[in-house]
């Protein structure tokens, strides 16, 4: 029976091979219902239409708005728009507050990324060392924190640290210390919330990565007398490097763009704007004070910073020899 099936299959292979295929240089026997080159573009068409219309075009518009004088009067059609060139950028760069917000954004994002990665990786390693019940408990708690929407996470953490009704001040004996009044304690509180809701992504991904490393490799290393540290450094770390790069880059992107947590937890940027980050600053400029063109210019600055991160990422990928 099996030999019959095999010979039928072989026959089909032969028949398949003998059919002439025009123009295709690919080695496989893929059919070409629409002709070779057009198929990938048909698959890509929906994505390109959506991305072109709702991402690329708005980015272009953002750049355009940043070059014009564009406030409430122009939006309502009361005054004509006038071209300002780089005037908005000049205004922005002359403003001390912009540089303060930029510095705060970079430091805050860096603190969030480092804390998230440290906690996430440490707990991922911990997950590999424990039996099923503690592992499931930590995994479910992490998924719960991950699943919590940013708005609700923000309000819940405010409630936990509330000066009058929160349990944290009672446990720490801080009386009615108001966390959101001080600049650094407010940033610290937001940092805690951000780490809480974003470490699970790192933990689960790195844990899945460690699990994907074949057990034989680790056993062989142990049999060869390698210490735990040596196994981590020489076997696990190199195999995990791609995944570590991915979670680092994702964290950088997410933490640099934080909006909801800052907006909700510090009431739109803290007292006198002491807790502003670029995203919230742009929003405030555009929608609270109707300076759309300044808001757009800040958006362009953010875009350029994140683009430079992308370039670093691409270089890392290339150095690893990964084919795109």
């Amino acid at each position, binding site marked *: 029976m099996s030999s019959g099936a095999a010979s039928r299959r072989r026959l089909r292979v032969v028949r398949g091979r003998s059919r002439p295929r025009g123009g295709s240089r690919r080695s496989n026997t893929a059919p070409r219902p629409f002709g070779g080159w057009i198929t990938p573009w048909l698959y890509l068409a929906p994505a390109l239409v959506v991305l072109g219309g709702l991402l690329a075009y708005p980015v272009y518009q953002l750049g355009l708005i940043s070059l014009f004088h564009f406030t409430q009067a122009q939006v309502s059609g009361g005054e004509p728009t006038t071209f300002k060139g780089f005037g908005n950028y000049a205004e922005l760069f002359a403003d001390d507050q912009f540089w303060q917000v930029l510095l705060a954004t970079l430091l805050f994002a860096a603190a969030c990324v480092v804390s998230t990665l440290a906690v996430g990786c440490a707990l991922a390693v911990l997950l590999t060392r424990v039996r099923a019940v503690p592992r499931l408990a930590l995994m479910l708690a992490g998924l719960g924190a991950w699943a919590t929407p940013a708005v609700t996470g923000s309000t819940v953490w405010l409630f936990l640290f509330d000066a009058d009704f929160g349990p944290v001040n009672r446990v720490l004996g801080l009386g009615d210390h108001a966390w959101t009044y001080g600049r650094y304690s407010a940033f610290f509180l937001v940092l805690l919330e951000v780490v809480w809701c974003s470490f699970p992504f790192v933990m689960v991904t790195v844990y899945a990565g460690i699990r994907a490393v074949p057990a034989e490799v680790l056993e062989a290393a142990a049999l060869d007398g390698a210490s735990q540290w040596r196994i981590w450094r020489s076997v696990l770390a190199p195999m995990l490097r791609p995944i570590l790069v991915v979670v680092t880059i994702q964290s950088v992107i997410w933490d640099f763009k934080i909006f909801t947590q800052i907006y909700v937890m510090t009431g739109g940027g803290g007292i006198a704007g002491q807790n502003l980050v670029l995203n919230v600053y742009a929003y405030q400029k555009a929608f609270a004070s109707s300076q759309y063109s300044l808001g757009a210019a800040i958006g362009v600055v953010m875009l350029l910073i*994140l683009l430079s991160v992308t370039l670093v990422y691409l270089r890392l990928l290339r150095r690893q020899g990964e084919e795109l």
Partner: protein
Amino acid sequence: MRRFVRRPWRLAAEATALLVAVVVAFPLYWMVLGAFKPAGEIESDRPRPWTLTPTLDSFRRVFGQQEFGRYFVNSVVVAVAVVIASALIAFLAATAVTRFRFRMRTTLLIMFLVAQMVPVEALTIPLFFLMRDLGQLNTLWSLILPHIAFSLPFAIWMLRGFVKAVPEALEEAAYIDGASRARFLWQILFPLVLPGLVATSVFSFISTWNDFLFAKSFIISDISQSTLPMALLVFYKPDEPDWGGVMAASTVMTIPVLVFFVLVQRRLVSGLGGAVKD
């Protein structure tokens, strides 16, 4: 690896894991507890980690708020539409960039990567004008369409690994057995990358469900078209928050995501693991 860990260390590790789990879960516990506490108890300056008189008052207040149920349905409609649309579109696109060699392929991949970096909050300004010109302000489309676009780049980038992991030989075998390209795509490739689709869906679901900036900016005059985060912020006023209402609304808003997560939990972990092997 477990075999190489000595016993006292393992017990210490397990105790640490359980302790961390408790700390991580505590905010969620506090949220649910706050939702069930009677008003007087919430406003006590000696908060207790339990309550002897649970009440549904806060939930009644939340659901008694104008059209809260409507907000909830709107949120679900927007999130489900975005998840399904972006999964299908990303699947096709990821297949195109992994299964075909064509000019511009690398350029496109880099463009998808760059697209992930776009700070979407900054696009609120141009998107507002675009939605206005399309006549879509105050409709759910003004939330669905931008979120599909923002979910796509990451979904394509992540799915790429899953599509790549399906051996070429399988594709050849399918064609040899007489399958059409469409049949291979939907009946063979699609089920195989489903764990990857689940993992990417988690991300698009969360980012859509989370959004309150677009709801706040694009749904301005017809409040019945708004979503849950807006309803939540009705109770949260920085000067005088109604904590019971905030915690009840937060609980209602978090439960669907939790259910979704628990449903996909296994596939999520194996899915992220699959991305690693890439």
